[in-house]
């Protein structure tokens, strides 16, 4: 049952590691699945500095899901000839509901977070932190750092490949710190990330598509 629900969420598509604010008028479909949750997000960018999305996240071990409206604000972007760096503020408010027979009633949930990244065509450094308050379903916090290296510089419309390492910290987890090596493949409007958590054995699967 959980697998089917997870696949459904994946098909709907989910949540993000690549730029959370797109070009003006652009839509982005994001799927994210990690050791804690599986999420789907679709967002629209009405301005260069913010986007608004609808996100659905299933917290698998805790048997609840949050459906929320998620605004993201680009606080600051730095440009260089060979790099770009960004700081985003992200929040969300919605409804948390039990899954897999969880008898708890639905309740309001909210979260807030920050995303920062610095990227060239060969190197990537990213940080993401988020706090979630899901009422009687509980609260949780997480932060993660990701470093990446591209073995070659792909040009426009080439397949871009990245080797990445993600270290996440989830204080409430039985393994508070875990490590996920992953591969990122990137071409045109599509991005796919495939990895495996080597501390808390779980696959990581992220997908982003812009249109």
């Amino acid at each position: 049952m959980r697998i089917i629900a997870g696949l459904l969420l994946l098909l709907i598509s989910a949540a993000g590691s690549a730029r959370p604010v797109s070009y003006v008028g652009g839509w982005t479909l994001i799927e994210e699945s990690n050791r804690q949750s599986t999420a789907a997000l679709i967002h629209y960018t009405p301005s260069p500095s913010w986007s608004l999305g609808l996100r659905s996240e299933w917290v698998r071990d805790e048997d609840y899901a949050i459906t929320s409206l998620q605004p993201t604000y680009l606080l600051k972007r730095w440009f260089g000839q060979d790099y770009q760096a960004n700081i985003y503020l992200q929040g969300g408010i919605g409804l948390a509901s039990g899954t897999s027979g969880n008898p708890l009633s639905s309740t309001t949930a909210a979260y807030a977070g920050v995303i920062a990244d610095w990227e060239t065509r060969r190197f990537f450094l990213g940080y993401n932190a988020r706090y979630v308050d899901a009422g009687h379903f509980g609260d949780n916090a997480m932060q993660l750092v990701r470093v990446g290296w591209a073995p070659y510089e792909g040009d426009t419309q080439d397949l871009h490949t990245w080797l990445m390492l993600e270290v996440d910290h989830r204080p409430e987890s039985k393994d508070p710190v875990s490590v996920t090596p992953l591969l990122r493949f990137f071409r045109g409007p599509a991005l796919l990330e495939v990895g495996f958590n080597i501390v808390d054995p779980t696959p990581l699967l992220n997908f982003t598509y812009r249109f």
Partner: protein
Amino acid sequence: MNMMSRFLMALLFLLLSTAVWSQHEHGQAHEHEHEQSVSENTADAASVTPATGRLTTTPEIEAALANGGTAVVADVLGVVCDFCAVAMNKIFGKQEEVAAVYVDLDTKALNLVFKPGASLDDEAIAALAVQAGYRISAVHRNAAVLGS
């Protein structure tokens, strides 16, 4: 542990395969100048030296030029990935003045060919780049754009 080893081997295989596939398998043939900027560490537009100022050609750009269009090359800050190129292509491709557009990650340049008799001024190009999420550091309109 066995499962993890198999998974890592599969990832390694994928990586090696894609590195081979990716060697310039462009859908469109284009020429790269591959010149490096002199100013690698600058953070703002005012102090950045233009990347090349030369037009990168694609079949669409050649066709637009053959049709009588005029070319412009704009140096762009912050274009480091294909999402950047997609954003610029979407924003500029929607403009009725534009006949062909191509973002070259190697030269960090936005290549535009306008329809015959049409054009966008530097300010309009800069404003559209902001809508795509990027910043223009220089616009080249002289004959050097075409390498002449």
